[in-house]
């Protein structure tokens, strides 16, 4: 059985700012992988570029640190190439909901079996504090000194309506709850999206720990029915005095892999490359 110690990567110095919400996400992910019993060499943590994107270096599993906004296509392909792997994709809100928004919606539609964790700090961290698609209206940043004019995107509502089968929100300030959500996401058969309220202590002075501690409440302590899509969408719209955390929506549907008979004989990567070329060419004779 995999242990937390095995997942530690002591050689690599964690480069996040002290107090950053990313630390809790890292710890929660390790705990979730241990709880779900996923072996490090059979796990791939995929990321885009951002502060969040550094995470694969801080955990001892296989990692793929791709391009800003493009982690979802890479993660999808890794899973399709070898569906025996556990694939967890991590990224920022700019990464997933800004530059990568197109991939986000289409990945929700597809229901490939992997987990997507978004470090949603409502700001661009690595590029030192510009507005993000989830920044609140009126929020002043380096790129919006007069305040953001646009409405923020609602990733939970988008994910539910685009067809994601596991849609949840966690909070970096509640580690046990977050780890449990991640474990559920990893164990869910299909595409699981977990949006994590992740305070950026350096560049976001609005959406702080204090801001969220006052607002968040746990869905599993309310009487929310996560199988009810309408109720889930209503919860996704809640973002004022109270912000729900937990599983907003969960439904069981066939995965993309289930609909792909090419995978019946086992992971693609294990299949032979040899084909009957003579028979193949006969169609041109």
């Amino acid at each position, binding site marked *: 059985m995999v242990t937390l110690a095995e997942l530690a990567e002591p050689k690599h110095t964690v480069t996040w700012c002290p107090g950053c919400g990313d630390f809790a996400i890292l710890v929660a992910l390790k705990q979730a992988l241990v709880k779900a019993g996923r072996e490090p060499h059979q796990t791939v943590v995929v990321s885009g570029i951002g502060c969040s994107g550094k995470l694969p270096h801080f955990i001892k599993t296989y990692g793929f640190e791709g391009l800003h906004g493009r982690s979802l296509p890479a993660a999808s392909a890794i899973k399709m*190439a070898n569906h025996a792997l556990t694939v967890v994709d991590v990224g920022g809100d700019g990464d997933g909901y800004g530059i990568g928004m197109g991939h986000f919606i289409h990945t929700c539609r597809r229901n490939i079996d992997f987990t997507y964790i978004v470090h949603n700090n409502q700001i661009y961290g690595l590029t030192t504090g510009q507005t993000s698609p989830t920044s609140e209206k009126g929020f002043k940043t380096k790129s919006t000194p007069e305040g953001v004019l646009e409405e923020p995107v609602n990733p939970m509502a988008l994910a539910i309506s685009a067809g994601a089968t596991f849609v949840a929100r966690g909070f970096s300030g509640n580690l046990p709850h977050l780890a449990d959500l991640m474990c559920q996401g990893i164990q869910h058969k299909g595409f699981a999206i977990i949006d994590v309220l992740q305070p950026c202590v350096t560049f976001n002075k609005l959406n702080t720990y204090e801001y969220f501690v006052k607002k968040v409440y746990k869905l599993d302590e309310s009487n929310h029915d996560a199988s009810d899509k309408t109720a889930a969408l209503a919860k996704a719209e809640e973002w004022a005095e109270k912000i729900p955390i937990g599983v907003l929506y969960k439904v069981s549907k066939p995965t993309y892999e289930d609909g792909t008979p090419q995978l019946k004989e086992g992971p693609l990567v294990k299949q032979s490359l040899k084909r009957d070329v003579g028979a193949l060419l006969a169609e041109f004779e």
Partner: protein
Amino acid sequence: MRINDVTLKVGGEAGSGILTVGHMFAKLMQKSGLQVFLTNDYPSLIKGGHNTITVRANPQRIYALTAGIDILIALDKKTVQEHYRELREGGALIYDSGKLKEEDVKLERPDVRKIGVPLSKIATEAGGDIFFNQAAMGAMLALLKMDLAKYDHMIEKAFGRKGADIVAKNKQVVRAGADHVRTNYPDPFGINVNPVQTDARNLLINGNDALCSGAVAAGVHLVAEYPMSPSSSVLHWMAAHAVKYNIVVKHTEDEIAAMNWLCGAGFAGVRCLTATSGGGFSLMNEALGNAGIAEIPCVIINDMRCGPSTGLPTYTEQADLRFALHASQGEFPRIVAMPGDAQEAFWMMVDVFNMADLVQTPAIVLMDKYVAESVTTIPSIKAEQVRIDRGLLQTDAQMAEAANFKRHALTPSGISPRCIPGQKNGIHVCSSYEHDETGYTSEEASMRIAQIDKRERKMRAISPLLYQPAFFGDQSSDLLVVSWGSSKGPVMEALKLLAAKGKSVRYMHIRYACPFAADTISAALKRAKKSLIIEGNSEGQMRNFIREKTGLLIPELYRRYDGRPFEAEEVAAVIEERLLK
């Protein structure tokens, strides 16, 4: 009387189904033991607009079309008036006498035989427009004095699944078309086709299908693509064969996704492929660099069409050479292959998959609309010669023994053993950042230099035998023609035309830009007293590239960038004018 050498052109509105007649005729000619070359010319429209398909059949291998046609099947007035002058002396115009009026087929060429056949009437009587093509085939077969039995056999094969009734109807329509010609136009036509008995089992295939077949033979397991002319048929062919060969074929949300799928799939260890044209290739650039720095093998087909931007979507060009060589920021090794015909397309596809695995880097296959979509007969491919070599990809057993594994180890060859997720003892991060030997981000100056040098060094591991140019024509001649990619066909045909006049030159067809056979190419240029390069772009991109790599400037440049392929006669005339005079 000419035997077994005939060129057919069919023209009509886009969407009128004329392509079918051309393809059926090509198949029949292949089955009759002849060699075939088929090409199409069509606008970027689904309905309306002017479409033509041209097929030449002849006992010798055909690399490109030559000027002139023998039979023109015209579905509309526009086809008649735009193309009848291409008919050779005594050629025939077959038209729908029910639809075209006398004045529509008024010609200034009394030698042309006008053959009116009530094509649509015959089709309607048999049950509908879909039989139109068969009526036209019947008329043509009668003209060429062909025995209908061979064609009957093709009909049985093609429509057998649909039932005996459909087969019978098709045959009946062919006979109606044929009978009309035999009865009303009994005079002999100057050309006959007599089937040739041959043991040679050739293939009738277009460039894209040859690339697909090569990829399947090479063991491709994942294809991610977004449709774009003229590469879409790669997606269609692969999708149609996906379940049979266990290939995951994904029509992704865009080309950015497609290329990032390749990065993921290549990293995970499967052979993977995408196909696109210039616009999509532009979108793939960032991820191409990711594959470069992270040492991920993958293959990208760029079927060139006229750029820039949307350009001329359904016309051909060779103007992305510089783009392919430099696409994406920074410096990293890449393979750039330029097959000149379907046969090369098959084998070079197999080779680039092996090269990509060997040097762990992306490979770009530059084709263009002309080769991608032209259908030709090529000699049968010896399947047993296909070799799959995955380079230093480690087996599970090797990794079970591994200790202190460094994915980007600085080896003398530059090539590091590669492991994939799922294997024990190989955990690392595959990163788009510059990294140290383990894959961990490194911005240290010496490591940066070491990793750039390592990646650059890898290319030397590719055997020079694989990327040499091909030489044709008279090897002792000191007159040299140079070209690359799809210009090969017209040059090969031009050599035949020159040979018929007792003239010859040496011809060098460049197949790879990366790795580049600079020594061979330089030696060939130095040996030549006069040289000429022919390419389908306005800047002379290969000419400039050769100069960059060898310091030699080919004095004569002949270009075409009107979207049309070179014609054999045109090339022959240029060679005569610039080299032989």
